[in-house]
């Protein structure tokens, strides 16, 4: 199948890549834009490891065709925080010892970031439902919830999520 041009914004940069029409957004990000932070854990939208923001909303990038992102904005784990400073969520995850194998973490963080943009002061229940689409097999989620709760508190004191 002939490739088509995909022009979109990724983590604030304008990006042009050639993709076949069947390629998923996840594969385009990983293979063409060379951002391997988003992970494929299932390829069917069940595990959440591929979660990115599409125009500010969390999506399972394995279920979105790359060409559906044409002209739109995508934010991946590589765009959370800056090259020198961790986002408060990332910082809290490190300090709370959340990452074990680490494979689910990029997706969990993107889900959590989207949650905090919608609910800056979420309850524990909101946090638990906010990341319910993200499977983690190592942590048991307890430290994850505590880290998100703490990051929310810090962001409220320090200003916006971005």
């Amino acid at each position: 199948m002939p490739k088509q041009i995909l022009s979109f914004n990724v983590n604030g940069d304008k990006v042009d890549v050639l993709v076949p029409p069947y390629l998923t957004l996840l594969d385009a990000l990983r293979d063409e834009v060379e951002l391997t932070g988003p992970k494929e854990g299932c390829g069917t939208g069940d595990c959440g490891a591929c979660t990115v923001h599409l125009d500010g909303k969390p999506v399972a990038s394995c279920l979105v065709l790359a060409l559906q992102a044409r002209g739109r904005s995508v934010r991946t784990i590589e765009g959370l925080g800056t090259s020198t400073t961790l986002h408060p969520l990332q910082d809290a995850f490190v300090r709370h010892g959340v990452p074990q194998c680490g494979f689910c973490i990029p997706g969990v963080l993107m889900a959590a970031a989207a949650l905090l943009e919608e609910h800056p002061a979420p309850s524990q229940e909101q946090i638990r439902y906010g990341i319910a689409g993200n499977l983690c097999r190592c942590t048991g989620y307890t430290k994850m919830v505590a880290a998100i709760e703490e990051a929310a508190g810090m962001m409220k004191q320090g200003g916006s999520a971005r």
Partner: protein
Amino acid sequence: MSVMKTTRDVKGVGLSIPRPDGPDKVTGRVQYVADITPRGLLHAKLLRSPHAHARIKRIDLSKARALPGVRAVLSAADIPELKRKAPTRAHAILAIDRVVFAGQPVAAVAADELAIAEEACDLIEVEYEVLPASVDPLKSMQPGAPPVADVGTEADTSEALAHSAVAMAKGETPTKAVNVSQTSTVKRGDVAKGFAESDVIIENTYRVPMVHQGYLEPHAVLAEWDRSGNLTLWASTQGSFNTRSEVADVLGIEDNRIKVIPVECGGGFGGKIRALCEPITAILARATARPVRYVMTRREELEAGMPAPQVIIRLKTGAKKDGTLMALDAETILETGAFSGTVLAVSAVFLGSLYRWPAFEIKGSEVLTHKPSVAAYRAPAAPQSIFAIDSQMDAMARALKLDPVEFRARHLSNPGEPMVNNQPWASMGASEVLKVAGEHRVWTERAKWKEGAAKGTLRGVGISLGGWLGGLQPTGATVKLNPDGTLAVLTGQVDIAGTNIALAQIAASAYGIDIDKVKITTGDTDVAPVTGLSAGSKTIYTVGVAVMQAAQAARKQTFEIAASELEASVDDLELVDGKVVVRGVPNKGVTLQSIGKKGNLYMSKVEPVLGASHPAFSQQAPAFAAQIARIEIDPDTGEVTLKDFVIVQDVGKAINPLAVEGQMQGGAVQSLGIALTEGLIYDDLGRLTNPSLLDYRKLTAADLPNLETVIVEVPAPAGPFGARGVGEPPIIPAPAAIANAVADATGHRLTHLPLTPERIALALAGNGGAR
């Protein structure tokens, strides 16, 4: 093992230090196998059998080979290494003329793009003659059942040895039941007499389905050969040396021809111990003379991974009215799938050894079926065995109207008492763990909490105790002093659980230097000392000793160099703030930096500091966990809601409490998954009916409360700083804790897992829905 005293309190053992790879993990920088893309990379895909049991009448690869972009298409006929009577799953690279489980690889493709490899698989023509399949293990073990293995295939017991060092005499395999691949019997005392003298006898059959380890990163490997016939494997593995040996054995080449680079492992839990897709990927790379990457899909993982065995346990137990245990009669069936490899002995040890039975007989059978072969899953066979024996103990206590904790405590084996295989129990903290759990408010306030149930809601509280014997395997480590006075630790141990930070803490404390001056590296199989698996709760217990001893040796060398410089006796020296000084004369000293530098100066006569240790082990350190569950049940739907959950665990010494808590919580949620939602479900033809993470239901954050952890420290005599293994115990108790809570809430003893709403609602309906 003596612990060398440090001259002051360094920042090391006992501190909650976040792992150093945290920043790279939260920013997506850490690379897993699927993230590594060398130039010229080809993508592999396997064509898998849709049938559980079939004869392959014809394979035609010609159309697939003709597809542009396809670089290799192989069937069994193209692989000279392939042998009949494959002793392990890894040896059965591709099916020869018979497939023995749905999902078994039949042909392999390497292509420029994954989409081309997938299309090529669609173009391969395979003609099958479908044969009757053995799907139910109880039927499969009967004479006349459709045979799984080729006649003469040996049972594989290596998993049991690697995991828990349990040795037991093999039983005699009945000749006519062709699918019974291993048997064992252990007995002591007069069981018939014990039951004859019992006042209460309870008999139940417990059943736990096959469950998948559920690691988020599917199996993945990248293989490349050089022109001299040396193979490099970038692998997601729990043991790079084990992967190397297995692949070398399958390919018939020397270990030295293979370099395994252990890439960050996205979870293993036992499922990434044995070789699976490495041999075929290496063969595709050889056939194409290109780097080839193979990443399994989630569907392939669920259909054709290496799950935990289905375990069926019939237990009959007898006791006197006063609670005296009299006899245990047990029969265990471990369904191993298409290849032998379960830990039969471990199951018997847990069924019969945890509590003191004056008379017991435990028979075990490993049964082959036409399903994917099994492997370890965190404390293999222990969650299933403890589910059975602890449910039974709880049922006995209820029948005898005795306190469940006191009843267990009264009969719990003590260190030194014999296990069923007559090995004595090593030092352990089972009774301490049970005591702490029994005094926890979630347990002691259970009556009051149950009174608070809303109308129309059932409440129950359950407790369970389980443990793990602790694995052993030789290992090695080196510790070197750098020219700037920092310390570098090298092992070959794959860090799948945060063990590297804990090992670095051990090095820091044993040498006498702060943790921020210590760096630890997991080397590949070409450079690192030979070491064992990251499995069986033995990394800290064994590799920790190697690191501790290597650090102590480095410290001794450092002190000898300083003693000669300072013209003092080694015994008069101490290490303070990175400086070796004469005790009491803090201004007379030599810095680690200068010692390190002199070991690297041109024409220097000072030997570089290099501590090494390569220990082997014989003393296990059993580790126990108790879990307490508060549940609510909706009697209309049968749905269980977990309200509170407590994990009490003896870790010997928490080297890094933060990491220890993470292990306890993560293991507990896997345990709760076995209890409540997980199970691979097969139809009558041996096909998996839930091959996705939507239908194979793992617990999410929304299913759970916060998990409380209580660390108990009963030092292990041979453990580094007293540490025991931490990984396995927390996955063991929850199935029984939940079943006991369900019994507490409903009066029904449920014995088949998972405890789905359907099972609970049916049980309630059978009792008229009443409490």
